[in-house]
C-alpha cells in the first residue's frame, strides 16, 4: 500500500529539460512512494519518456531536482531499477536466453543466479521452450513478455514500465496485470506509463498527467475522479446527441451516450438545452462519474472543473 509518510522512492521537483529550442519538460513535479503503482499519463509527445529518462539519469535536467531512493542517482542504485521502455530493446539476431542473461548481468547478477531465475520466469511466461530461439523468430507478444522478464529478473525495488500491455492478448494482459499487482504487494514501487485508461483505473493508486511538458493533473485516482464528478452526463434515448452546447465530446458506451461537459457547464444546463429540442427523446438522464478517459480529454483540452 501507499505509505506517503515514508521517503518517496522517486521525487521530481521543478524539473526542466530542453533539446535545442524545444522544451520537452517544463517544471514537472511529483513524488512516487514505496509500494504504490503510480500512473504516468499524457498524450504522445507530452514529455513522459523524457521525464522517465531524467528519472533514470539517462538525461540530466537543465533545472530542478531528481531524487531516487532518497538522493541523487548513483551507479549502485541503477541495479535497483527495472525499466521497460516503450520501444522494446532486444538483440534480434541473438538467442533469447543469452540476451536475457547479458541484461541481467549488467544489472549486477552473476551468471548462475541469472540463469536460475530466468528459468523460473521463462517457464511462468511460457517462453522456456523458446529460450534457444533467436529473438526475431519470436512473436511480438513473446518479445513483449521477454522484455517484462528482463525488467523484473533482478528483483528491482523500482519498476518503470512504459505501455506494459501493448502487443499482449487478453490472456497475457491478465497475466501481466497479476505480475504487476504481485510486485506491488511485494513492496516494490511501480511507475506505469500507458494510454489504456481503464488499466490505470484498475491498477494505479495515484497519477500524474503530463501535457506539453507540464504536469497538469496530479494526485490520487479516487480524489481526482471526485473532483471531476458532475462533469459528465449519461443519456439514454433517441436522437443525435453529438452536437449539444457545452459538451466536449459524445460517445456511446453500453447503449448509453456519454457526454463530458465543458468547464462551467452544469448537468442542469445540458438537460434544459436538450429538453428544448424536439429532435431528441430522452429516456434516462443522470450525472456520470467521470472516467479517467473523460478527465484526460478534458484536461488536455484545457477544461478543468474550476474552469
Amino acid at each position: 500500500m501507499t505509505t506517503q509518510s515514508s521517503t518517496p522512492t522517486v521525487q521530481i521537483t521543478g524539473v526542466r529539460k530542453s533539446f535545442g529550442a524545444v522544451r520537452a519538460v517544463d517544471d514537472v513535479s511529483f513524488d512516487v512512494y514505496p509500494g504504490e503503482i503510480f500512473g504516468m499519463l499524457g498524450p504522445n509527445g507530452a514529455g513522459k519518456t523524457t521525464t522517465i529518462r531524467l528519472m533514470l539519469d539517462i538525461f540530466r535536467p537543465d533545472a530542478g531536482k531528481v531524487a531516487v531512493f532518497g538522493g541523487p542517482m548513483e551507479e549502485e542504485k541503477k541495479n535497483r531499477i527495472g525499466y521497460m521502455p516503450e520501444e522494446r530493446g532486444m538483440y534480434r539476431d541473438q538467442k533469447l536466453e543469452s540476451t536475457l542473461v547479458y541484461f541481467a548481468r549488467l544489472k549486477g547478477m552473476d551468471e548462475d543466479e541469472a540463469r536460475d531465475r530466468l528459468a523460473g520466469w521463462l517457464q511462468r511466461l511460457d517462453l522456456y521452450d523458446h529460450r534457444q530461439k533467436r529473438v526475431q523468430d519470436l512473436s511480438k507478444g513473446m518479445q513483449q513478455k521477454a522484455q517484462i522478464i528482463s525488467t523484473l529478473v533482478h528483483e528491482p525495488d523500482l519498476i518503470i514500465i512504459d505501455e506494459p500491455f501493448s502487443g499482449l492478448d487478453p490472456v497475457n494482459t491478465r497475466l501481466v496485470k497479476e505480475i504487476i499487482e504481485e510486485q506491488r504487494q511485494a513492496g516494490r514501487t511501480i511507475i506505469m506509463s500507458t494510454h489504456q485508461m481503464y488499466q490505470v483505473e484498475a491498477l494505479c493508486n495515484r497519477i500524474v498527467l503530463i501535457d506539453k511538458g507540464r504536469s497538469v493533473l496530479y494526485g490520487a485516482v479516487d480524489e481526482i475522479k471526485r473532483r471531476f464528478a458532475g462533469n459528465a452526463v449519461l443519456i439514454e434515448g433517441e436522437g443525435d446527441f453529438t452536437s449539444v452546447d457545452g459538451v466536449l465530446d459524445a460517445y456511446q458506451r453500453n447503449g448509453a451516450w456519454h457526454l463530458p461537459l465543458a468547464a462551467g457547464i452544469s448537468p442542469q444546463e445540458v438537460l434544459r438545452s436538450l429538453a428544448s429540442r424536439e429532435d431528441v427523446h430522452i429516456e434516462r438522464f443522470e450525472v456520470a462519474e467521470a472516467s479517467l478517459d473523460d478527465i484526460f480529454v478534458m484536461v488536455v483540452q484545457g477544461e478543468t472543473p474550476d474552469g
Partner: protein
Amino acid sequence: MHNITLVLRHEIATTLRKRSFWFTTFVFPLLILAFSLIPQLLTDRFVGDDPVSLLTGPAGAPQQIGYVDQAGVITTVPADLSSLLEAFPDRETAEQALHAGQISQIYLLPADFMQTGEVVVVAPSLSPLAGEQNENLLRWVVAANLLKDEQRADLVLAPTAAVQETVIAPAEVDNRSSAAGFGVSFALMFILFFSITMSSGYMLQSVVKEKENRTAEVLLTSLKPQELMIGKVVGLGCLALLQMTIWVGGGRLLLNRGADLLAGLGSVTLPAGFWVYLVLYFLFGYLVYSSELGAIGALAPSAREGSQFTFVIILPLLIPLWFNSIFLNDPNGTLATVLSLFPLTAPTAMITRLASASVPAWQPVAGLILLAVTAWFFIRLAARFFRADTLLSDTSLSWTRLRGELRNTVGSGK
C-alpha cells in the same frame, strides 16, 4: 570496470558467432595471398635454374628446338635434354622442320662462332619469354660442351648461386630488388589496410546495432555511454588483434618456410623490431579508425546511413595503396616519408616502408608517437559523441549535422 568487461565479453562472443568474421579471417587472406603470389610462383617457374624447366610451360608440354652447329661445338647433348634439342645438318632442313611445326625455333652457330660468339635465331614469330628460355638452354649446352663438364658449366653460368650470408653488423634492409620483397611489402600494406578497416567497420556495425535494436536505452539504465564505447573498442580490438595474429602468423610461417614454398621469399630481410612496430602501428591505427567509425555509429540512425560516411573516413588509409609504387622506387623519398609520418596514413605507409628498405631509426618512433597522440585525441572526441541523446536519437545523419555536432562538441570542450 565490471560493466566494461561485460560489454567487452558480449562483443567478443557476438562477433565470434558471425560467419563473416571467420570468412574474413581465413578465406579472405588466402584469396589475397593467391592473387599476390601466383604470378610470382609462375614467373619463378619460368626463370628457375633447372634447364628442363626452362622449356616446360605451365601445362608441362616440352617445346623442341632445332640447332645447326656449323662450328662443331656441340658434340654431346645430355640425355635428359635430347628430347628438347634436335640437331640439323643445314639451315634448309631445319627451316623445313620449323615450317612443319616440328620445332619452335632454330639456333644457327656459324663456323666462326668461336671467334665472334654470334648466334642466329630463326623463329616463326617474336616471343621474348620463349626466346630467353631457349637461349638459357643453348647457353648451358654450349658451355657444357666447351668445358666438357656439366658441373663446371653450372658454376660458370652462375658462380655464386648458393651464397650463405653471415651478418656481423646490422643489416641494411633492401627488399626492393626482389619480387618477393615487393610481394611481402605489398602484402603487409594490404593486411594492415584490411584488418584496420574491417575491425573498425565492426565497431560501426556494433554501435548502430544498439540503435537499430533499440537496446541502447536499456543499456543506458545500467551503464554509462563511455563504458559502452570502451567495452566495444577494447572487445573488438582484441578480436582485431586475434585476426591480425592469425594473418601475420601465417605470413611469418610462409617466410620461415619460404625456401620450400617460394623461391626468393626466404631471402626477404625485415629490420630489428619490425614485428613490434607492426603490432603497435596496427593497434593505434585501429584505435584511430574505430573511434572515428564508432562516433559515426553513435550519430547515425542506421547502418545504411552510417556506411555512407565510411569511405570518406577510411580514405586516408587508402592513399598509401594508391601510391604503392613509391614505397618500392623511392621508400625514403619525401612523399613516402610524409605519408609514413602523417598519423592517418602512417599505419599502412610506415610498415610498408619498414618492410621495403632501411628507414632512419627516429622516423618509426616519431610516427608512432604522432599516431598515439592522434588515437588519444580521436578516442576523446568519440567519447563526446557517445551521449545518451545521440544514442537514442533517430535523427538522420548528414554532413551538415556532422559538422554541427563537431562544432558543438569541440567548441563546448565537454
